[in-house]
């Protein structure tokens, strides 16, 4: 019998393949290593990210359901809650105890009952509604708050770039 983390990841992969949530595709990059996943997230409708397809990488720790995975967008992103290198700053990905921004209540943190699907859905809703208080990307947060037009323009550019359309 393989490790519990592996079993859990295989189960989640199966679940995601059988009943994929709308606008989300996820799975291991290589079936020999279930601890590195790739996910494709479509921008939520009715937001400035609408229509975009954003690739991201998920790295799972060896003790997976006990510790949260790490998520990083592999394309260029401009969003208040995404660091400039693509790492996603969202409370569901933080284990209770470490709090990079010092504002999160433990109720919205990682717990073993969460899953990849829930993470990706949270990321989709984060794309739709940025939390400008946590400010992983301060420029983006500032622009989101003060100059929404400009923000929307940049977001549209990014969407075009992910689709391979020249801007």
């Amino acid at each position, binding site marked *: *019998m*393989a490790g519990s983390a*592996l079993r859990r990841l295989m189960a989640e992969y199966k679940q995601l393949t059988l009943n994929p949530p709308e606008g989300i595709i996820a799975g291991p990059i290589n079936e*020999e290593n*279930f601890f590195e996943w790739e996910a494709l997230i479509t921008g939520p409708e009715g937001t400035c990210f609408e229509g975009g397809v954003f690739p991201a990488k998920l790295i799972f720790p*060896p003790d997976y359901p*006990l510790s949260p995975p790490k998520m990083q967008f592999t394309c260029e992103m401009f969003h208040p809650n995404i660091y400039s290198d693509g790492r996603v700053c969202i409370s569901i990905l933080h*284990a*209770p*105890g470490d709090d990079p921004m010092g504002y999160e209540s433990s109720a919205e943190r990682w717990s073993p009952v969460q899953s990849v699907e829930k993470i990706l859905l949270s990321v989709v809703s984060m794309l739709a509604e940025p939390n400008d208080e946590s400010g992983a990307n301060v420029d983006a947060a500032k622009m989101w708050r003060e100059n929404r037009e400009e923000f929307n323009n940049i977001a549209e550019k990014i969407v075009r770039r992910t689709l391979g359309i020249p801007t």
Partner: protein
Amino acid sequence: MRSLSISLLSLTLTSIVIANAYYQKKQFYPSVVYITKSNPSMAVIYIQAFICVWISGKIMRKIFFGQLRTTEFEHLMERSWYAITETCLAFTVFRDDFNPKFVALFTLLLFLKSFHWLAEDRVDYMERSPVISWLFHVRVLSLLPPARLALTCTSSSSPEHAILLTVVINIAIKYALHSVDLNSEMPWDNKAVFLLYTELIMGLIKVIFYVAFVAIMVRIYTLPLFAFRPMYYTIRNFKKALSDVILSRRAIHNMNTLYPDATPEELIAADNKLPCNHIFHTSCLRSWFQRQQTCPTCRLNILRTPANNNNARPAQQGPRLPPQNVFMNQFLIGPNPIQFFNRQNLGNMGPQQQQPPQPAQPDQPNQQQPAASGAAPGAAAAQPQAAVPRFPSCISRSYRSWLRRRCPPQNLATLSPEELQRMEGNERENVEARIQCLRNIQVLLDAAVVMMQQYNATVTASTQSPHSSSQPNVAPINIPQPSTLLNPSNHNATATVTPDQHDPAQTAATAPSTSTRASSSTDGGTSTEFTKPSTSKELETEARESPMTPEEEVRRRRLQRFQQPAEAQQ
């Protein structure tokens, strides 16, 4: 490509140096002396030696590990930078006896260390990969003994040696645990515990070694700066492992003692319930408690919450049934009154369900069905809920086996006299068994009546004080006095059935009571084999005949109310 060109360059440089020396001195010995005297040529030779070591290391790695994965390579690089820095620091301490031999020793040590790290990563990888080939096992197994052998050979710098030895032992234990787990089909729950304790003990040993090493170094040489970083990390890891062990032990202790296991009808098996009523596998909870002592769903702090399991049981609502229902649901015998009683015990009965027994009656079987199938997933749920009564499984089972054993052959004429004689004996046993069976049934019927009476009492109480209806389990439960014990063997039979079937909570329900009433209450609940002359009318007459206290009067009236719809259905 780059490394290839570097090694080629160094090779040509070395050959140039050697050729030059040989060209100048013409003889072997003088040329060796020439090379060792000249600093530039010595530098070239050192570089060549370093590259040779590097290449041999690569070959070894290829043999023992094959292709390194990216994470392994990153780990290796990170750790070797630290190790190299520390080695340089160590040279400052040992500068007095700094010589090529010493350098060679440290290089060898570095190599051994890197192989240990790789082996550690590899063994951890066992848990992650779905496919572990035999080559993997061969490699790891062949790696472990040489590592130990090499260590004993280079035991000069003793503290490092001891620490590496602990690493080897740690890897070996982990490997053993993982491979046992890998070969077993069932998930091995205790592995996490073993791993945790291995970590703890190895951490302790390492801490001891480091402290001893630093103490010795301070006495003999000077403050060993290079040992501080690993010592700090070792101590930190040990502290973490220790606190993990302590906290998880406390939480697990709480889990085992204070929170009840989920009862079988709540979930299949091996589950555990937290004070917030969330249910998890014990093994899952154990590994989570090693991190966090909270409920994974609602994040209730387990250590700070006073366990209130005694309250938790009755307070829970919804599909989880109180434990009494294990017993109660076995009594889902066809007709209604008992089901009513059962319903009352479901624990979360609203007033609207409680008040009118009559209009709700037709729905009862349907509503009851899911609860029944949930509670007794065996034969009871499979049987259609028709006129055929359901016996408590123990009796029906014994009856069936008894039928199988005792059925006489079809044609008696074919039997020899001995066989006939034996059959006579069997027939006597037969009768005895039948009587026993009847007694058992009687006990069950008695219990049913007691439950009915209990129901009556509860309804009485709830109609008297509407507030109590919200807390059905707290409602007064009047166990009626055993009134007319018509059958003296009744008492005896109760004793024979109760132990395997009823837990202490239900002993009240099996208290002997009137047997005639019992039979009447489950009219139609017995098969033809065990027919009892009973109708619901009889109950009323019987009840009227017996002298009555006011309480009994109330009970009788309640019973009458039952009987009317029951008859209407029949």
